[in-house]
């Protein structure tokens, strides 16, 4: 349909605009969800590490390591936390949750470090380790490993859900735009067909071309054009081309 060509640019523009919206929204969403969820997990882990550190003071001072182990075992049930270990003021490991043993990477790390650090433990995965000093560090340090793979999975799932929703909106938007464009294109095509049919006939037969009543009854620009063509087909053309009506006057008449 030649008339559709008229809308190809518009259609491309709509697609491009929707695509841009989806892309930018998705990127913003990914960045926001990634940043926010990562920060939330890290903040939760730091809170838990601090809670353990605060709860450990008396237990450590009493050297009650079984209770200390029981305490960290309970926190290990929190989703995302894969390991916890507690070192004393000399750096000795007093309690931990590693099976079958403390990984070399951990054994060789600085037990007094309290800044978050990303670790890759062979056979276990990638972790964000957060730490909290016990009694300002003079009684030891709690270290807690948050499973980055699990966090990444959670983030991916959250992003996936958002992108899924945006994609549905994109498809609905595109289908709606196609429908709307077609809505405009269809009467234009009818008008074009009418105009072509009229043009094909000799001037004296043009008045015989039957226009679609619906086309002539439209109260929009297409209807006005159809009625203009009908008027022109029924008006005998002047022998002197100079006598043709001024196009500006025709636009006014339309």
């Amino acid at each position, binding site marked *: 349909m030649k008339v559709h060509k008229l809308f190809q640019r518009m259609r491309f523009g709509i697609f491009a605009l929707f695509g841009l919206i989806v892309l930018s929204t998705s990127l913003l969403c990914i960045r926001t969800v990634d940043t926010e969820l990562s920060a939330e997990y890290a903040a939760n882990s730091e809170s838990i590490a601090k809670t353990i550190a605060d709860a450990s003071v008396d237990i450590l001072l*009493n050297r009650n390591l079984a209770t200390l182990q029981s305490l960290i*075992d*309970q926190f290990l049930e929190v989703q995302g936390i894969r390991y916890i270990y507690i070192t004393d003021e000399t750096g000795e490991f007093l309690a931990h949750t590693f099976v*079958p043993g403390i990984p070399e990477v951990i054994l060789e790390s600085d037990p007094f470090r309290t800044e978050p650090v990303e670790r890759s433990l062979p056979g276990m995965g990638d972790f964000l380790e957060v730490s909290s000093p016990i009694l300002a560090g003079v009684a030891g340090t709690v270290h807690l490993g948050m499973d980055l793979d699990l966090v990444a999975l959670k983030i991916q799932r959250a992003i996936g859900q958002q992108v899924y929703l945006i994609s549905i909106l994109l498809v609905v938007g595109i289908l709606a735009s196609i429908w709307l464009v077609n809505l405009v294109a269809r009467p234009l095509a009818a008008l074009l067909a009418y105009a072509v049919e009229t043009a094909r006939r000799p001037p004296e037969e043009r008045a015989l071309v039957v226009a679609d009543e619906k086309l002539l009854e439209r109260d929009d620009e297409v209807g006005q054009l159809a009625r203009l063509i009908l008027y022109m087909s029924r008006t005998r053309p002047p022998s002197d081309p100079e006598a043709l009506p001024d196009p500006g006057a025709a636009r006014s008449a339309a």
Partner: protein
Amino acid sequence: MHSSCAAALLAPWARLANAALAAGDGVSSGAGSAAAPGRQAPNRGAAGDGIVLGTSAAFTGPSRGLGNELYRGAMAYFRQINDSGGINGRQITLKLYDDGYQPDPCVQNTLKLMLEDQVFLLFGYVGTPTVTRVLPMLKKFQEEQIYMFFPFTGAQPQREPPYGDFAFNLRASYRQETAGLVENFLATGRRRIAVFYQADAYGRSGWAGVRAALENHGETIAGEATYQRGSRFTGTMRAQVEILQRAAPDAVICVGAYAACAAFARDAIDLGLRVPIANLSFVGSENLVNLLSEGRDDPETYTRWLVNSQVVPSYEDESVPAVREYRELMARHNPQIPEQFLDDPYSPLPQSFVSLEGFVNAKLMCEIFRRFDGAPVRAGLEEAVFSIRDFDLGIGEQVSFGPERRQGLQRVYYTVVEDGRFVPLTDWNALPA
């Protein structure tokens, strides 16, 4: 959740639970005054014609042998007492729940026992990770004065503040067991001691005992490896063995349950780690040996490396009066596992260290109840226990309790396997190298 009243002890405990204690009941003169002044603790579970004790233990799962045998040993004595008229005419009933050796079910079971079943006291719990989680509940409900008696664990939390006041222990502690093992190993030149332990409070308790004992001699733990609680014999412990092999230990002390420790011993010997492998009393010695020897051409392939510490004398030693009594009553009553726990098949052992411990636990429990004139009262329990001084349980060691002594027995026994049986270890130098 499984629950049961012991079949032969069908006192109508529901009625008992709702019965009120007669106000004038108290302890005998031997126990001093009955209740502490000003303490009006409720006394449910011990009135009328019965005393209801509450138990949460491992009756199913990989450690079910421990809960089952401890229960069977206790029941052998309780049945005998009930058959002969009970304590001051009162029958003793056990209200049982299975926790599978897992802390969370144990906490739920304990809440039921205390709040719904309203048992008189808690008796015969199994395990450190379970008991350590229950102790804070006893403190929370301290106004109810519910005590825990004779848990099957040698860990420190129920022996020390802040929870020591809510429990009474009979057996020696893991600290004592590990100290004895370490000192004997060091005395025979085995200075590099490694630890294989359960990754929980029990394992940590044993680990801490080994660490402290070594520290006293200027030594440190040579190597350590852990396993997940609930591991089965069919699983592999090769990773743990490889970790310990790198430490080149002279001996390994295992702090675990029988299934995992048997798997470790098997893999250690198979991989060439041929050093004495010591186990604590909690392990469940007979089940350990059965797993390691059953169906093998040479049943001592693995068991010859075992050294097990025990907190009761050998059940084979009939020169011990309590052992004779235990063997006789086990044979007479042959207590069975309640049916609701038999979904997980289990073959009871004729005798075992665990059931002997359950037996002496029950024997001392009954002695404590005897210290009351009428119905035992919670408020008088502590003083009744403290009235036990130099009491002869018949195991060759006097039992004493007091405000500063909440553990009755102190002795640790060391055994090795010969002809499939545990016999006393008399010469530490004779251990295989």
